[in-house]
């Protein structure tokens, strides 16, 4: 119950923040969607960082390290530190400047204007929305799973006194709710053998469906009332929360797991137990193939996705001035390090016998099958319910700080790129625009929540494919800003090649069923990430078609190039 109380207080605080920020709302659609371009350096840093760091930052990083070892930091985090800031620097500032000049609110408005093509918006819209939806679903489903795991009962194995008899499970921490509190369809689920049981269902915790619904409602309330300003404030608050709580969790887990008097001694004790194959990236015997060097290199292309995230584009446009970008550009890699290093170490410790051998066999199997639950399980086992509650708040903060921007962005895109764009200009005043944007946001939240009820588990494996899809469109935004010869036909070719290669490789991976899918260099065994092929295809298509088609007119180029 302690965890649930802390989670409740945290969500209440967020609601208060949303209501407070709504009091500063100026009542215009520009204020609602872009906070009237008033966001300074600190809020911009925190909102951009909070938006790019999803649940994956805390839960996924620990899980990946548990599965693959500490090498995941180089694979996913240090590369992002370089590439994300590069995107903010070379794309963000320029797009912000053009947005100020020509009054854009969405990415599609920019591309329509830059290429003088209405249809490019129609081509891009379903692709961008289609790539954001699985991302939203991951957040909604992960929030429900985290709250459920952290509020459910904890059992420990007690060795039997009879020699040879399996240990029995004894409930150490009771769940927040007794059996029978909720309707049966929320409490009981089928286990692997097909038996419908309480322990396979909510197991004493808040049922996932209810937990996800609460998170959706809280995010909806502060996005609905506060718009972009509410989102930026909430992101800032939540980013501070998950960074501080992450460090506290690291300290407590290190002390408990290491079991020594000082932090340094405990750290040493915990790290010495990490198996060798989790410390390196090379192969160690059978079953530990490691990661190939070329695959590691081509992973560098994945973070280019931030250049095409529609929600990040919207955040860039909120900046008060170009100087507001300086702090996010500098501090982003450092912030990634502060969040990721402790999580990666915790994940590697979890793979050591020091932790793993003390778990009941069913839980060990559960962890190996779903590494994303490593962090909640560790906290449940090693920390007090109080810390468990705070950590849950931290994880939810990371999830919600991405969800809010995505909900707001999709609502804005529907309003600006479809509804307003195809309506008679003078039939929609500002008040009506605001009403439509809010209605679309409600609709997006409703649709996302409903889809999440079907538990499309496959969305978790879609994560890297979504990122790759956005990355494959990076050449489009980069060329549009830096290459005058980019033509309308070249832009279409780029989008189609990106989408076509993505679809082809996605099908080759058996629709993400082959989790470790890679593309081998022709005639060799060298593995590359699919994203490298996609970017190659979209770049070649953009360059070749642009060179073969009529260059854009001078008047248009003058508007976009100094």
């Amino acid at each position: 119950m302690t965890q649930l109380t802390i989670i409740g207080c945290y969500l209440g605080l967020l609601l208060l923040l949303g209501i407070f920020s709504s009091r500063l709302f100026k009542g215009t659609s520009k204020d609602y969607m872009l906070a009237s371009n008033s966001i300074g350096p600190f809020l911009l840093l925190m909102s951009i960082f909070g938006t790019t760091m999803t649940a994956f930052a805390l839960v996924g990083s620990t899980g990946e390290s548990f599965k693959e070892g500490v090498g995941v930091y180089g694979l996913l985090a240090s590369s992002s530190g370089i590439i994300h800031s590069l995107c903010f620097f070379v794309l963000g500032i320029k797009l912000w400047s053009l947005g100020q000049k020509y009054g854009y609110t969405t990415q599609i408005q920019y591309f329509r204007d830059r290429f003088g093509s209405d249809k490019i918006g129609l081509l891009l819209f379903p692709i961008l929305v289609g790539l954001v939806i699985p991302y939203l679903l991951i957040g909604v489903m992960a929030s429900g799973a985290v709250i459920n795991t952290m509020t459910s009962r904890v059992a420990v194995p007690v060795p039997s006194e009879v020699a040879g008899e399996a240990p029995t499970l004894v409930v150490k921490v009771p769940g927040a709710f007794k059996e029978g509190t909720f309707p049966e369809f929320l409490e009981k689920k089928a286990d692997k053998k097909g038996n419908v049981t309480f322990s396979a269902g909510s197991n004493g915790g808040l049922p996932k469906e209810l937990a996800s619904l609460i998170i959706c409602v809280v995010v909806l309330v502060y996005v609905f009332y506060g718009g972009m300003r509410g989102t930026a404030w909430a992101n800032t608050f939540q980013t501070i929360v998950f960074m501080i709580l992450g460090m506290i969790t690291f300290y407590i887990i290190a002390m408990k797991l290491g079991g020594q008097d000082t932090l340094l001694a405990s750290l040493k004790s915990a790290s010495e137990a990490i198996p060798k194959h989790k410390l390196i990236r090379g192969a160690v015997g059978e079953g530990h193939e490691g990661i190939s060097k070329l695959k590691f290199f081509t992973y560098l292309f994945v973070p280019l996705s931030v250049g095409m995230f529609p929600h990040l584009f919207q955040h860039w446009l909120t900046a008060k001035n170009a100087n507001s970008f300086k702090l996010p550009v500098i501090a982003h890699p450092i912030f990634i390090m502060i969040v990721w290093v402790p999580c990666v170490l915790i994940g590697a410790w979890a793979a050591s016998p020091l932790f793993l051998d003390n778990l009941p066999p069913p839980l060990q199997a559960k962890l190996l099958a779903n590494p994303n639950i490593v962090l909640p399980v560790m906290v449940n086992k090693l920390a007090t319910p109080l810390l468990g509650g705070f950590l849950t708040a931290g994880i939810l903060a990371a999830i919600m700080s991405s969800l809010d921007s995505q909900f707001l962005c999709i609502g804005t895109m529907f309003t600006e790129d479809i509804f307003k764009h195809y309506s008679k200009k003078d039939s929609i005043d500002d008040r009506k625009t605001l009403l439509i944007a809010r209605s679309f946001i409600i609709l997006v939240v409703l649709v996302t929540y409903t889809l999440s009820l079907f538990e499309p588990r496959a969305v978790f494996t879609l994560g890297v494919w979504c990122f790759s899809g956005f990355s494959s469109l990076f050449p489009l935004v980069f060329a549009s800003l830096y290459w005058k010869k980019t033509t309308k036909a070249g832009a279409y070719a780029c989008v189609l090649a990106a989408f076509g290669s993505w679809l082809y490789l996605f099908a080759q991976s058996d629709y993400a069923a082959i989790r470790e899918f890679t593309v081998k260099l022709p005639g060799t065994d060298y593995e590359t990430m699919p994203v490298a092929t996609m970017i190659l295809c979209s770049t070649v298509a953009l360059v070749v078609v642009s060179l073969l088609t009529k260059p854009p007119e001078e008047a248009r180029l003058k508007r976009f190039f100094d």
Partner: protein
Amino acid sequence: MKMVVWGLVVLLLILHQDNWLWDDDRLVFGFMPITLLYHAGISVAAGVTWFLATKFAWPTHLEDSSSSEGGTH
């Protein structure tokens, strides 16, 4: 100086590919895996490089961007 900054960014990307630490399982200070420490260093170096970029390669001509001129979108 602008070229030096962009050179540093390229150097960071090269240093990121640390093939020489691929099979190194040493624990620095007794607890920090060397691979993790090295890449945490890359993150700090990235912060420093981007700081230099804001000092010496900043697009100052974009700082006084004028307000909306209206577009065709």
